[in-house]
Protein backbone atom coordinates (compact mmCIF):
# COMPACT_ATOMS: atom_id res chain seq x y z
CA UNK A 1 0.00 0.00 0.00
CA UNK A 2 1.19 3.51 -0.73
CA UNK A 3 2.07 5.67 2.21
CA UNK A 4 0.57 9.15 2.26
CA UNK A 5 3.08 11.56 0.78
CA UNK A 6 4.56 14.26 2.98
CA UNK A 7 3.74 17.80 1.92
CA UNK A 8 7.22 18.29 0.52
CA UNK A 9 6.75 15.49 -1.98
CA UNK A 10 3.38 16.78 -2.96
CA UNK A 11 5.07 20.05 -3.88
CA UNK A 12 7.76 18.20 -5.77
CA UNK A 13 5.29 16.28 -7.86
CA UNK A 14 3.18 19.38 -8.47
CA UNK A 15 6.33 21.11 -9.70
CA UNK A 16 7.20 18.29 -12.06
CA UNK A 17 3.71 18.07 -13.49
CA UNK A 18 3.62 21.80 -14.05
CA UNK A 19 7.04 21.86 -15.68
CA UNK A 20 5.38 21.90 -19.06
CA UNK A 21 3.58 25.08 -18.09
CA UNK A 22 6.40 27.56 -18.73
CA UNK A 23 9.59 27.11 -20.67
CA UNK A 24 12.38 29.57 -21.30
CA UNK A 25 13.27 30.41 -24.89
CA UNK A 26 16.88 29.48 -25.66
CA UNK A 27 19.00 32.24 -27.21
CA UNK A 28 19.58 32.02 -30.99
CA UNK A 29 22.54 30.02 -32.34
CA UNK A 30 23.99 33.29 -33.68
CA UNK A 31 24.98 34.21 -30.11
CA UNK A 32 27.23 31.30 -29.06
CA UNK A 33 28.24 32.83 -25.70
CA UNK A 34 24.65 33.38 -24.66
CA UNK A 35 23.81 29.88 -25.80
CA UNK A 36 26.71 28.41 -23.81
CA UNK A 37 25.54 30.30 -20.75
CA UNK A 38 21.98 29.09 -21.26
CA UNK A 39 23.23 25.49 -21.37
CA UNK A 40 25.44 25.93 -18.31
CA UNK A 41 22.58 27.45 -16.33
CA UNK A 42 20.46 24.47 -17.34
CA UNK A 43 17.17 26.05 -16.35
CA UNK A 44 14.76 25.39 -19.23
CA UNK A 45 11.73 25.93 -16.95
CA UNK A 46 13.00 29.29 -15.69
CA UNK A 47 9.73 31.26 -15.93
CA UNK A 48 7.92 28.58 -13.97
CA UNK A 49 10.78 28.21 -11.48
CA UNK A 50 10.81 31.96 -10.88
CA UNK A 51 7.07 31.84 -10.16
CA UNK A 52 7.72 29.03 -7.67
CA UNK A 53 10.55 31.07 -6.15
CA UNK A 54 8.13 33.97 -5.60
CA UNK A 55 5.72 31.55 -3.90
CA UNK A 56 8.57 30.34 -1.72
CA UNK A 57 9.65 33.86 -0.81
CA UNK A 58 6.08 34.72 0.20
CA UNK A 59 5.83 31.58 2.37
CA UNK A 60 9.26 32.29 3.80
CA UNK A 61 8.60 35.86 4.85
CA UNK A 62 5.09 35.12 6.18
CA UNK A 63 5.76 31.82 7.96
CA UNK A 64 9.23 30.29 7.86
CA UNK A 65 11.27 33.34 8.83
CA UNK A 66 9.03 34.29 11.80
CA UNK A 67 9.16 30.69 13.05
CA UNK A 68 12.92 30.71 12.58
CA UNK A 69 13.25 33.93 14.57
CA UNK A 70 11.23 32.39 17.40
CA UNK A 71 13.39 29.25 17.21
CA UNK A 72 16.48 31.39 17.66
CA UNK A 73 15.33 32.34 21.13
CA UNK A 74 16.53 28.88 22.09
CA UNK A 75 20.19 28.95 23.09
CA UNK A 76 22.54 27.59 20.46
CA UNK A 77 23.50 24.44 22.42
CA UNK A 78 19.83 23.42 22.30
CA UNK A 79 19.61 24.09 18.57
CA UNK A 80 22.87 22.19 18.07
CA UNK A 81 21.30 19.24 19.87
CA UNK A 82 18.36 19.33 17.45
CA UNK A 83 20.84 19.26 14.56
CA UNK A 84 22.72 16.37 16.16
CA UNK A 85 19.58 14.30 16.72
CA UNK A 86 18.44 14.88 13.12
CA UNK A 87 21.84 13.95 11.81
CA UNK A 88 21.92 10.82 13.98
CA UNK A 89 18.52 9.75 12.63
CA UNK A 90 19.92 10.22 9.15
CA UNK A 91 22.85 7.84 9.75
CA UNK A 92 21.47 4.80 7.84
CA UNK A 93 20.92 6.93 4.72
CA UNK A 94 24.42 8.44 4.88
CA UNK A 95 25.96 5.02 5.58
CA UNK A 96 24.15 3.46 2.63
CA UNK A 97 25.38 6.20 0.32
CA UNK A 98 28.94 6.09 1.71
CA UNK A 99 28.97 2.39 0.81
CA UNK A 100 27.36 2.85 -2.60
CA UNK A 101 30.03 5.42 -3.40
CA UNK A 102 32.78 2.96 -2.39
CA UNK A 103 34.04 5.07 0.52
CA UNK A 104 34.87 2.53 3.26
CA UNK A 105 36.71 5.02 5.47
CA UNK A 106 33.83 7.50 5.44
CA UNK A 107 31.37 4.64 5.97
CA UNK A 108 33.43 3.64 9.03
CA UNK A 109 33.29 7.23 10.31
CA UNK A 110 29.52 7.29 9.86
CA UNK A 111 29.02 3.99 11.65
CA UNK A 112 31.45 4.83 14.47
CA UNK A 113 29.79 8.21 14.99
CA UNK A 114 26.40 6.55 15.22
CA UNK A 115 27.46 4.13 17.98
CA UNK A 116 29.33 6.77 19.96
CA UNK A 117 26.64 9.45 19.70
CA UNK A 118 23.74 7.07 20.36
CA UNK A 119 25.40 5.75 23.54
CA UNK A 120 27.79 8.35 25.01
CA UNK A 121 25.92 11.14 23.21
CA UNK A 122 22.69 10.10 24.95
CA UNK A 123 20.68 9.15 21.88
CA UNK A 124 22.31 11.65 19.59
CA UNK A 125 21.70 14.81 21.62
CA UNK A 126 25.44 15.42 21.97
CA UNK A 127 27.94 15.11 19.16
CA UNK A 128 30.67 13.57 21.32
CA UNK A 129 32.07 11.81 18.25
CA UNK A 130 33.21 15.21 17.03
CA UNK A 131 33.93 16.99 20.31
CA UNK A 132 35.76 14.10 22.04
CA UNK A 133 36.86 11.79 19.24
CA UNK A 134 37.52 14.31 16.49
CA UNK A 135 35.34 12.64 13.88
CA UNK A 136 33.19 15.40 12.33
CA UNK A 137 29.86 14.72 10.69
CA UNK A 138 29.61 14.45 6.91
CA UNK A 139 26.60 13.94 4.69
CA UNK A 140 25.95 11.88 1.63
CA UNK A 141 22.71 11.43 -0.24
CA UNK A 142 21.53 9.44 -3.20
CA UNK A 143 21.71 12.46 -5.50
CA UNK A 144 25.47 12.56 -4.79
CA UNK A 145 25.72 8.80 -5.28
CA UNK A 146 24.03 9.12 -8.67
CA UNK A 147 26.49 11.90 -9.54
CA UNK A 148 29.46 9.66 -8.69
CA UNK A 149 27.88 7.05 -10.98
CA UNK A 150 28.06 9.67 -13.73
CA UNK A 151 24.39 10.66 -13.81
CA UNK A 152 23.97 14.25 -15.01
CA UNK A 153 22.13 16.78 -12.88
CA UNK A 154 19.10 17.21 -15.12
CA UNK A 155 17.17 20.47 -15.32
CA UNK A 156 17.18 22.91 -12.44
CA UNK A 157 13.99 23.14 -10.39
CA UNK A 158 12.80 25.46 -7.68
CA UNK A 159 10.39 23.80 -5.29
CA UNK A 160 8.76 25.96 -2.59
CA UNK A 161 10.01 25.07 0.93
CA UNK A 162 12.34 22.40 -0.49
CA UNK A 163 14.29 25.11 -2.32
CA UNK A 164 16.65 24.98 -5.30
CA UNK A 165 17.28 21.46 -6.53
CA UNK A 166 17.89 19.60 -9.78
CA UNK A 167 15.95 16.65 -11.12
CA UNK A 168 18.66 14.12 -10.22
CA UNK A 169 18.80 15.28 -6.60
CA UNK A 170 15.02 15.35 -6.35
CA UNK A 171 14.90 11.72 -7.48
CA UNK A 172 17.71 11.00 -5.01
CA UNK A 173 15.63 12.43 -2.19
CA UNK A 174 12.87 9.98 -3.04
CA UNK A 175 15.32 7.09 -2.66
CA UNK A 176 16.74 8.53 0.58
CA UNK A 177 13.24 8.88 2.02
CA UNK A 178 12.53 5.24 1.18
CA UNK A 179 15.80 4.21 2.86
CA UNK A 180 15.03 6.18 5.99
CA UNK A 181 14.49 4.21 9.22
CA UNK A 182 11.04 5.68 9.90
CA UNK A 183 9.90 4.22 6.58
CA UNK A 184 10.84 0.72 7.78
CA UNK A 185 8.36 0.78 10.64
CA UNK A 186 5.49 0.63 8.22
CA UNK A 187 2.58 2.96 8.71
CA UNK A 188 0.24 4.09 11.38
CA UNK A 189 -0.58 7.38 13.02
CA UNK A 190 2.50 7.44 15.25
CA UNK A 191 4.89 6.84 12.38
CA UNK A 192 3.18 9.48 10.25
CA UNK A 193 3.34 12.01 13.07
CA UNK A 194 7.02 11.22 13.69
CA UNK A 195 7.77 11.53 9.95
CA UNK A 196 5.97 14.85 9.84
CA UNK A 197 7.78 16.18 12.91
CA UNK A 198 11.09 15.08 11.49
CA UNK A 199 10.39 16.68 8.09
CA UNK A 200 9.38 19.93 9.79
CA UNK A 201 12.44 19.88 12.02
CA UNK A 202 14.72 19.32 9.02
CA UNK A 203 13.22 22.35 7.24
CA UNK A 204 13.66 24.47 10.39
CA UNK A 205 17.20 23.22 11.08
CA UNK A 206 18.23 24.03 7.49
CA UNK A 207 16.52 27.43 7.55
CA UNK A 208 18.31 28.22 10.80
CA UNK A 209 21.70 27.14 9.47
CA UNK A 210 21.34 29.55 6.54
CA UNK A 211 19.58 32.32 8.50
CA UNK A 212 22.25 35.00 8.04
CA UNK A 213 22.99 33.95 4.46
CA UNK A 214 19.30 34.20 3.48
CA UNK A 215 18.89 37.62 5.11
CA UNK A 216 22.07 38.81 3.49
CA UNK A 217 21.06 37.56 0.07
CA UNK A 218 17.63 39.14 0.23
CA UNK A 219 19.20 42.42 1.27
CA UNK A 220 22.09 42.64 -1.17
CA UNK A 221 21.32 40.54 -4.24
CA UNK A 222 20.11 42.14 -7.45
CA UNK A 223 18.61 38.81 -8.50
CA UNK A 224 18.29 36.43 -5.53
CA UNK A 225 16.85 33.68 -7.72
CA UNK A 226 19.88 33.65 -10.05
CA UNK A 227 22.31 33.93 -7.12
CA UNK A 228 20.67 31.03 -5.29
CA UNK A 229 20.58 28.89 -8.43
CA UNK A 230 24.29 29.37 -8.98
CA UNK A 231 25.32 29.03 -5.32
CA UNK A 232 23.33 25.83 -5.02
CA UNK A 233 25.04 24.32 -8.06
CA UNK A 234 28.47 25.17 -6.66
CA UNK A 235 27.63 23.82 -3.22
CA UNK A 236 26.41 20.55 -4.72
CA UNK A 237 29.57 20.22 -6.82
CA UNK A 238 31.62 20.67 -3.65
CA UNK A 239 29.51 18.11 -1.77
CA UNK A 240 29.82 15.57 -4.58
CA UNK A 241 33.60 15.99 -4.60
CA UNK A 242 33.58 15.77 -0.76
CA UNK A 243 35.13 19.23 -0.57
CA UNK A 244 32.36 20.52 1.67
CA UNK A 245 32.22 21.40 5.31
CA UNK A 246 34.44 21.34 8.27
CA UNK A 247 32.16 20.24 11.01
CA UNK A 248 28.49 20.80 10.73
CA UNK A 249 26.58 21.22 7.56
CA UNK A 250 22.99 20.13 7.37
CA UNK A 251 21.91 17.49 4.89
CA UNK A 252 20.89 18.64 1.47
CA UNK A 253 17.35 19.83 1.44
Amino acid at each position, binding site marked *: MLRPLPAIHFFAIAALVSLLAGCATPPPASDPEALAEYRA*TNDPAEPFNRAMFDVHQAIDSAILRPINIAYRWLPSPVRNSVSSVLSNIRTPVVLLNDMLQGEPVRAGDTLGRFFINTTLGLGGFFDVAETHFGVPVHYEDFGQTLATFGVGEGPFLFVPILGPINLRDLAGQGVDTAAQPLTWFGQGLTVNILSGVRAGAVVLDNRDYYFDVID*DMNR*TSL*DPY*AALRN*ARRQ*ARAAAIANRDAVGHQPPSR
Partner: protein
Amino acid sequence: MLLLIRRDFAVLGLALLCTQPSHAQVDTARAAQFIQSAGDELVAAINNPGLNAAARQERVASILRRSVDVETVGRFVLGRFWRVATPAEQQDYLRLFEASLIRNLAGRFGEYQGVRFSLGRSQSRTEDDALVSTIVTRPGSNPFNLDWRVTESSGQPKIVDLIAEGTSLRLTQRSEYASVIQRGGGQVAALLSAMRAQSAR
Protein backbone atom coordinates in the same frame (compact mmCIF):
# COMPACT_ATOMS: atom_id res chain seq x y z
CA MET B 1 57.96 -3.28 -19.98
CA LEU B 2 61.06 -1.25 -19.21
CA LEU B 3 60.39 0.74 -22.33
CA LEU B 4 56.92 1.51 -21.07
CA ILE B 5 58.21 2.69 -17.72
CA ARG B 6 60.82 4.86 -19.44
CA ARG B 7 58.14 6.37 -21.57
CA ASP B 8 56.08 7.10 -18.47
CA PHE B 9 59.02 8.91 -16.95
CA ALA B 10 59.43 10.93 -20.10
CA VAL B 11 55.78 11.90 -20.02
CA LEU B 12 56.05 12.77 -16.35
CA GLY B 13 59.09 14.93 -17.04
CA LEU B 14 57.30 16.72 -19.83
CA ALA B 15 54.27 17.27 -17.60
CA LEU B 16 56.49 18.75 -14.89
CA LEU B 17 58.10 21.09 -17.41
CA CYS B 18 54.72 22.22 -18.63
CA THR B 19 53.37 22.95 -15.16
CA GLN B 20 56.25 25.27 -14.28
CA PRO B 21 54.46 28.59 -13.87
CA SER B 22 55.66 30.93 -16.57
CA HIS B 23 54.36 34.25 -15.31
CA ALA B 24 53.05 36.08 -12.27
CA GLN B 25 53.95 33.27 -9.92
CA VAL B 26 52.29 33.52 -6.53
CA ASP B 27 54.23 32.25 -3.58
CA THR B 28 51.77 30.31 -1.40
CA ALA B 29 53.66 31.12 1.77
CA ARG B 30 53.54 34.82 0.98
CA ALA B 31 49.85 34.60 0.10
CA ALA B 32 49.12 32.80 3.37
CA GLN B 33 51.08 35.40 5.31
CA PHE B 34 49.15 38.16 3.56
CA ILE B 35 45.80 36.57 4.46
CA GLN B 36 46.97 36.04 8.02
CA SER B 37 47.78 39.72 8.46
CA ALA B 38 44.73 41.05 6.57
CA GLY B 39 42.55 38.65 8.55
CA ASP B 40 44.14 39.73 11.85
CA GLU B 41 43.41 43.36 10.97
CA LEU B 42 39.80 42.55 10.07
CA VAL B 43 39.23 40.53 13.24
CA ALA B 44 40.74 43.31 15.37
CA ALA B 45 38.43 45.89 13.77
CA ILE B 46 35.32 43.69 14.04
CA ASN B 47 35.95 42.83 17.69
CA ASN B 48 37.06 46.29 18.79
CA PRO B 49 34.77 47.18 21.72
CA GLY B 50 35.63 50.87 21.42
CA LEU B 51 33.92 51.23 18.02
CA ASN B 52 30.25 51.66 17.28
CA ALA B 53 28.66 49.81 14.35
CA ALA B 54 29.26 52.59 11.81
CA ALA B 55 32.89 53.13 12.80
CA ARG B 56 33.49 49.40 12.76
CA GLN B 57 32.09 49.08 9.24
CA GLU B 58 34.16 52.02 8.05
CA ARG B 59 37.34 50.46 9.46
CA VAL B 60 36.51 47.09 7.86
CA ALA B 61 35.77 48.84 4.54
CA SER B 62 39.13 50.60 4.52
CA ILE B 63 40.99 47.33 5.16
CA LEU B 64 39.04 45.71 2.32
CA ARG B 65 39.73 48.55 -0.11
CA ARG B 66 43.45 48.00 0.48
CA SER B 67 43.38 44.19 0.30
CA VAL B 68 40.95 43.42 -2.52
CA ASP B 69 41.85 43.79 -6.20
CA VAL B 70 38.49 45.41 -6.90
CA GLU B 71 39.05 46.09 -10.60
CA THR B 72 40.10 42.51 -11.39
CA VAL B 73 37.11 41.15 -9.49
CA GLY B 74 34.77 43.63 -11.15
CA ARG B 75 35.91 42.70 -14.65
CA PHE B 76 35.64 39.01 -13.86
CA VAL B 77 32.12 39.46 -12.50
CA LEU B 78 30.93 41.38 -15.56
CA GLY B 79 32.40 38.58 -17.70
CA ARG B 80 31.59 38.60 -21.40
CA PHE B 81 29.57 41.81 -21.01
CA TRP B 82 32.75 43.79 -20.24
CA ARG B 83 33.51 43.79 -23.98
CA VAL B 84 29.94 44.79 -24.84
CA ALA B 85 29.96 47.76 -22.47
CA THR B 86 30.96 51.20 -23.75
CA PRO B 87 34.01 52.82 -22.07
CA ALA B 88 31.65 55.12 -20.16
CA GLU B 89 29.60 52.14 -18.98
CA GLN B 90 32.80 50.36 -17.91
CA GLN B 91 33.82 53.36 -15.80
CA ASP B 92 30.35 53.65 -14.30
CA TYR B 93 30.24 49.95 -13.61
CA LEU B 94 33.60 49.80 -11.83
CA ARG B 95 32.63 52.71 -9.60
CA LEU B 96 29.28 51.15 -8.68
CA PHE B 97 30.86 47.72 -8.29
CA GLU B 98 33.51 48.93 -5.86
CA ALA B 99 30.90 50.70 -3.75
CA SER B 100 28.57 47.69 -3.63
CA LEU B 101 31.31 45.10 -3.04
CA ILE B 102 32.85 47.03 -0.16
CA ARG B 103 29.46 47.92 1.33
CA ASN B 104 28.18 44.34 1.18
CA LEU B 105 31.34 42.74 2.52
CA ALA B 106 31.81 45.33 5.26
CA GLY B 107 28.15 44.93 6.22
CA ARG B 108 28.52 41.17 6.41
CA PHE B 109 31.85 41.12 8.27
CA GLY B 110 30.79 43.94 10.56
CA GLU B 111 28.15 41.68 12.12
CA TYR B 112 30.59 38.90 12.91
CA GLN B 113 31.27 39.91 16.50
CA GLY B 114 33.51 37.53 18.41
CA VAL B 115 34.85 36.11 15.15
CA ARG B 116 38.14 34.24 15.06
CA PHE B 117 39.91 32.53 12.21
CA SER B 118 42.81 30.17 11.67
CA LEU B 119 44.74 29.18 8.59
CA GLY B 120 43.69 25.77 7.29
CA ARG B 121 46.01 22.98 6.32
CA SER B 122 45.79 23.05 2.57
CA GLN B 123 47.29 25.87 0.57
CA SER B 124 47.23 25.30 -3.15
CA ARG B 125 48.22 27.13 -6.26
CA THR B 126 46.81 27.47 -9.74
CA GLU B 127 48.46 29.06 -12.73
CA ASP B 128 48.30 32.63 -11.53
CA ASP B 129 46.80 32.63 -8.10
CA ALA B 130 46.96 30.93 -4.74
CA LEU B 131 44.15 29.56 -2.63
CA VAL B 132 44.55 30.17 1.10
CA SER B 133 42.13 28.19 3.21
CA THR B 134 40.93 29.39 6.60
CA ILE B 135 38.46 28.18 9.18
CA VAL B 136 36.20 30.86 10.60
CA THR B 137 34.56 30.46 13.99
CA ARG B 138 32.14 32.71 15.81
CA PRO B 139 30.30 32.19 19.05
CA GLY B 140 26.94 30.43 18.71
CA SER B 141 27.64 29.34 15.14
CA ASN B 142 29.29 26.37 13.56
CA PRO B 143 32.76 26.84 12.11
CA PHE B 144 32.94 27.14 8.36
CA ASN B 145 35.55 26.95 5.60
CA LEU B 146 36.50 30.20 3.96
CA ASP B 147 39.06 30.12 1.15
CA TRP B 148 40.72 33.27 -0.13
CA ARG B 149 41.95 33.46 -3.69
CA VAL B 150 45.02 35.66 -3.92
CA THR B 151 46.83 37.03 -6.98
CA GLU B 152 49.93 39.10 -7.36
CA SER B 153 49.19 40.50 -10.80
CA SER B 154 49.72 44.05 -9.55
CA GLY B 155 53.01 43.10 -7.87
CA GLN B 156 51.41 42.88 -4.45
CA PRO B 157 49.22 40.11 -3.06
CA LYS B 158 45.54 41.00 -3.36
CA ILE B 159 42.29 39.13 -2.75
CA VAL B 160 40.28 38.24 -5.87
CA ASP B 161 37.71 35.80 -4.50
CA LEU B 162 36.14 34.44 -1.33
CA ILE B 163 34.96 30.84 -1.35
CA ALA B 164 32.62 29.89 1.50
CA GLU B 165 32.19 26.13 1.91
CA GLY B 166 32.98 25.53 -1.75
CA THR B 167 30.84 28.39 -3.10
CA SER B 168 32.74 31.13 -4.86
CA LEU B 169 31.42 34.63 -4.35
CA ARG B 170 32.63 35.97 -7.68
CA LEU B 171 31.11 33.08 -9.63
CA THR B 172 27.77 33.52 -7.89
CA GLN B 173 27.85 37.24 -8.54
CA ARG B 174 28.82 36.80 -12.18
CA SER B 175 25.84 34.54 -12.71
CA GLU B 176 23.59 37.01 -10.90
CA TYR B 177 24.75 40.00 -12.99
CA ALA B 178 24.48 38.02 -16.24
CA SER B 179 20.89 37.22 -15.33
CA VAL B 180 20.08 40.89 -14.62
CA ILE B 181 21.57 41.93 -17.96
CA GLN B 182 19.89 39.13 -19.89
CA ARG B 183 16.51 39.92 -18.36
CA GLY B 184 17.12 43.57 -19.16
CA GLY B 185 17.25 42.81 -22.87
CA GLY B 186 21.00 42.17 -22.99
CA GLN B 187 21.78 45.75 -22.01
CA VAL B 188 24.59 46.52 -19.54
CA ALA B 189 22.61 49.68 -18.78
CA ALA B 190 19.96 47.50 -17.11
CA LEU B 191 22.55 46.24 -14.64
CA LEU B 192 23.88 49.73 -13.99
CA SER B 193 20.43 51.07 -13.18
CA ALA B 194 19.74 48.12 -10.84
CA MET B 195 23.07 48.79 -9.09
CA ARG B 196 22.29 52.49 -8.83
CA ALA B 197 18.84 51.76 -7.41
CA GLN B 198 20.40 49.52 -4.80
CA SER B 199 23.08 51.97 -3.73
CA ALA B 200 20.37 54.62 -3.29
CA ARG B 201 18.50 52.37 -0.85
